[in-house]
């Protein structure tokens, strides 16, 4: 996702010299290439995320379009007040890209995990929140963030995530994507954990359980209409997120269902208000926290059995 991010950013930087690549000493791996091509459009603020975020707001007042980039945890938590006051309250055209979403920084532990960012940032007015699942979708989100006039948070993973989209894929911001349909069970998913949710759906299908799979790339503004439509044809719903189940995608769907008086049961799969356990590969840490395909599959099966579905 990071190479997709920087690739698209270079495209934008070439078109528009007001596009700035702004860093806090944690780059994409391709930043020297960016510097060679656009030496006046890249700034590394060193290890000072709050300063970087506020400075980006200052840049935006002069007409620049800064894309600030660092680990999501250091943006959503450490720089929260600066995102809120300087970018969102002033409603400035700054794009905040938090990488290593969810448990992607698996071996570094919860200080580096971004598992509450959606909950925290979703409550801030004026902020659009994009949560791509694949490299191709990341590039599309970067383009969409550039087109949108105003603050955007893009929640991106690492690199080499499985691609689900065709080369000519185009995103429609604010519209959920139904990737699997025709079932009576609906699974909503956001971010790169789509890969695990999709495999779980495949495993269920092999046993004759057809689930609808909906990818939510736009957390805010959320496509409530789609959620309602899916709920109306579902006997049970699930949300899958590499995030605390409090305040994230699952909460968002629960709010939507309650707002619309829809009583279909929802089970939220994610971190159950805990910090993740374990170290090692991303895959391994997902498994240790019940967020790999096998765990998602088992969880859905068990809940369906409990409900007699």
């Amino acid at each position, binding site marked *: 996702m990071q190479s997709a991010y920087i690739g698209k950013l270079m495209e934008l930087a070439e078109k528009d010299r007001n596009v700035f690549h702004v860093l806090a000493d944690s780059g994409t791996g391709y930043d020297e290439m960016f510097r060679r091509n656009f030496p006046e459009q890249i700034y590394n603020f060193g290890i000072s995320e709050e300063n970087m975020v*506020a400075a980006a707001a200052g840049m935006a*007042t002069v007409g620049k379009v800064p894309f600030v980039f660092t680990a999501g945890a250091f943006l959503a938590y450490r720089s929260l007040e600066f995102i809120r*006051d300087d970018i969102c309250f002033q409603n400035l055209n700054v794009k905040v890209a938090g990488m290593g979403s969810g448990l992607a920084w698996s071996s570094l532990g919860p200080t580096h995990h971004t598992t509450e960012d959606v909950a925290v940032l979703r409550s801030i007015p004026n902020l659009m929140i994009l949560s791509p699942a694949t490299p191709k979708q990341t590039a599309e989100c970067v383009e969409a963030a550039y087109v949108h006039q105003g603050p955007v948070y893009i929640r991106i993973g690492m690199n080499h995530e499985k691609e689900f989209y065709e080369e000519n894929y185009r995103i429609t911001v604010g519209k959920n994507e139904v990737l699997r349909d025709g079932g009576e069970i609906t699974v909503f998913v956001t971010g790169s954990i789509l890969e695990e949710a999709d495999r779980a759906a495949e495993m269920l299908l092999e046993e004759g359980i057809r689930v609808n799979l909906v990818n939510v790339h736009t957390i805010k503004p959320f496509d409530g209409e789609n959620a309602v439509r899916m709920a109306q044809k579902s006997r049970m719903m699930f949300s899958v997120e590499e995030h605390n189940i409090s305040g994230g995608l699952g909460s968002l769907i629960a709010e939507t269902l309650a707002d619309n008086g829809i009583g279909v049961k929802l089970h939220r799969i994610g971190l159950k208000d805990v910090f993740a356990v374990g170290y090692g590969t991303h895959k391994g840490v997902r498994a240790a926290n019940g967020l790999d395909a096998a765990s998602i599959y088992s969880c859905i099966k068990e809940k369906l059995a409990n409900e007699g579905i």
Partner: protein
Amino acid sequence: MDKILKEEKELKELRKKIFLTGYKGGMAHLASCYSSLEILYAFYIKKALRYDCSNPKWADRDRLILSKGHAGLALYAVMAKAGLLTEEEYDSYLQPGSRIGGEPCLRDSEWVEATTGSLGHGLSMAVGMAMALKADRSPAKVYAVLGDGECEEGTVWEAAMSAAAFQLDNLVAVLDCNRIQKMDFVEKTMGMANWNEKWASFGWDVAEVDGHDVQALENRFRMPNESGMPCLIIAHTVKGKGVSIMEDNPNWHFKLPGKKELKVFREELGISDAELA
């Protein structure tokens, strides 16, 4: 001499106006406003700040960020005097349907360059503005007015470090050094300040000036930058300047006078019964 008398009269009028507005609004950081007043006067009334009254969004205007946003009422009073805010807008302070509040806010006036209130944000935003203006080859300068208590915020030093690293010679920070923070003296709270040495050690060009001497402030603000580095101007001020009981007294950070104290305010600022009504 006439000029100085005129300025003194205008500054006293502004202090009176700030007091009356704050008092009627029911809340104001009067002492901080009085500490920053000459600094803001030199910028907006003496026009050490380059701006075009008819075009708030002139691309090459100088920017001023009041990082110590709690002196916002002083900024608004000076802006109103400069004709950037109507008297009606100014007088609406904290009244029902008010247009302005206790801290400068981007959405409240097109002349406010940055929303402040939470300390330790303004200098970083100023850094970003200075960088963007440099990228545009603009001659504009960026000024950030900070409090000395505010320098206890860590981000001030992140911003200071980056401004020097990026050699922002178009950035000037003005330290309203009144030696008092909300609860006590800065020195008693966080030890010796030594601002000159601290900022110089971060690579800044540091100057010191009497923060209530309008001419000295104006001269210093207009001075071209020859160091190639960002500049810190330490403006030595008195918190609560202009009302004896408030001057240099930590009790007055966020307080309006009671009955007895009001008498002193009225005498020293020359406030009539009618004006207070």
